[in-house]
């Protein structure tokens, strides 16, 4: 329940943010009046950071980025994971063996280092090509990579669920009635597998947001996209001068990730029949 409230808060902020924010996100005018590193005040409720940005505005504009990263990465991961796991579980045999070894291969790749390397290399490669003009190219790359390396846990669970469900009597009954394989997969097996998959996906969203923050914190993020990790990156060196500039985005990350983890907990309790009553 608390998880839902926290997530609802983030979502509402992300949607109404542009009307809520007191300044435009790229307004650095505080620099001109020597108001950078400004402590929280009525004019700047969360203070200003070393670049003269209004911290509250930047935190608000960071919410849609975080959600886009979390949902986008998990969308990619779910598509790959359910496809790979579902095929492995449903077909079994050699297909299962091969796909699960592939999953394990992806599981042992040091994802973080990989993403940093790819993001940096890609950033160099695109210079001078048409790709350069694609908006948020860097952020999209990160989302895609988080998705491409985030699917193994989903695939493993999807495999287990498909394996369990394909032997269930109602699936057998559907087959005996003459159902097409398509109906069996998408009408009988997948919807019954979704509850447990939703738990892993909710956890994954929080994980992806955290991962993007870490990437941005290391300075590999998208310079054009406003993200909480990037705020930390800009301001961690002045932690002792203006701690609010770091505390605010840090707290935002904390609330969002906690929200998704609590949601995952709540979902797994809600779907667990043994805990009912």
């Amino acid at each position, binding site marked *: 329940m608390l998880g839902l409230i926290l997530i609802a808060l983030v979502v509402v902020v992300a949607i109404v943010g542009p009307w809520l924010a007191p300044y435009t996100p790229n307004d650095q005018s505080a620099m001109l009046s020597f108001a950078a590193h400004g402590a929280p005040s009525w004019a700047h409720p969360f203070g200003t950071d070393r670049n003269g940005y209004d911290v509250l505005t930047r935190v608000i504009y960071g919410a849609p980025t975080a959600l886009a990263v979390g949902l986008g990465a998990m969308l990619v991961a779910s598509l790959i994971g359910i496809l790979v796991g579902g095929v492995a579980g449903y077909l079994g045999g050699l297909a299962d063996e091969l796909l699960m070894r592939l999953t394990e291969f992806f599981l042992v790749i040091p994802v973080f280092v990989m993403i940093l390397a790819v993001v940096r290399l890609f950033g160099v490669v695109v210079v001078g090509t048409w790709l350069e003009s694609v908006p948020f190219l860097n952020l999209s790359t990160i989302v895609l990579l988080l998705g491409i390396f985030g699917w193994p846990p989903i695939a493993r669970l999807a495999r287990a669920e498909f394996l369990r469900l394909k032997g269930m009597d109602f699936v057998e009954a559907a087959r005996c009635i*003459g159902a097409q394989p398509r109906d069996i997969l998408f009408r009988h097996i997948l*919807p019954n597998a979704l509850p447990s998959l939703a738990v892993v996906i909710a956890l994954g969203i929080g994980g992806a947001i955290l991962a993007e923050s870490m990437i941005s914190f290391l300075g590999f993020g998208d310079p054009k996209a406003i993200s909480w990790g990037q705020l930390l990156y800009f301001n961690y060196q002045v932690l002792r001068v203006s701690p609010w500039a770091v505390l605010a985005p840090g707290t935002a990350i904390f609330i969002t990730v906690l929200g998704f983890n609590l949601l995952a907990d709540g979902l797994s309790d809600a779907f667990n029949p043994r805990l009912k009553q």
Partner: protein
Amino acid sequence: MTDLLTVDGLKVHFFTQSGVAPAVDGIDFAIRPRETLGLVGESGSGKTMASLAVLRLVPPPARIVGGSLHFQGRDLLALDNAAMRGLRGSSIAMIFQNPAFSLNPILTIGAQLIEILRWHEHLSHAAARDRAAELLRLVGIADPVHRMRQFPHELSGGMKQRICIARALLCNPALILADEPTTNLDVTIQAQILDLLEDLRERLHMAMLLVSHDMGLVARMAHRITVVYAGRTCETADVRTIFHAPLHPYTRALLDSAPRIDRDYEHQAHPTLRTIAGRIPDLAAPPSGCRFHPRCPEATADCARLRPEPVQVAPGHIVSCLLRGSPGVPDVGVPGLGVSP
């Protein structure tokens, strides 16, 4: 009268890593239009596999490796997958052992019934809904429109089995395969469901294959009975002959081990309920010759060596036993036994 379904020498083998297990190794039976055939045997005798094989739906790692299946004159083993799918549910329908698990828990009853009619009969949604409601009324569900909006967990076990029966009947099948349809129900509900099945079979001119281990149930429902043991047919005859003049030693033993209400087990002639000595054989390494010979009280040396072929001893009475006149063929064992696929 021509047979509706003929199963001849059906073989279903399990291909496991430790070798080939012949779960069904030569089962024959035939069902005539509008009759109920009881397929009786112990657990693991291959009776469920045989009924799934009729739909060509034996679960992997099992495969149909031999024999022939003819339904309404068509060779089922020669049909392509699409034609077989068209047959399942519309001409041959199945009722399962456990109604609690044979309905999709997250779809309403109505949705599950309507989708079948839309696949097989290409009815409009409204027409399919009306037909489903009509069928539910036919199986004795009082308020079908309301029930169709409910989910399986909101219904009782007996109710669910009625819905499974309705689902099987949706497309007017010629043959119903009922795999222990009442095993998981209360005794009172069992009687109701059996009456319902019998009544519907009569009214809708269907034939039924009743798979069961319960001699009493089969005696009540079936016109003819096929007894199977360890994947092979022992004896086929009409119900009267099976109960009054059984020939195969296994049929006799099976009947002796069923408790009867007209016998006084505490005194007099039958001091205890007789059982069949030994255990059902391990199907990965079945005994040679007649499968029943290690447990058979009449077994001779030949029984371990020769495989009995079915022989007709009287019109409609077929027995596979060397001592009842079956010709024996040297048993070469299962081809491919012990070889991984």
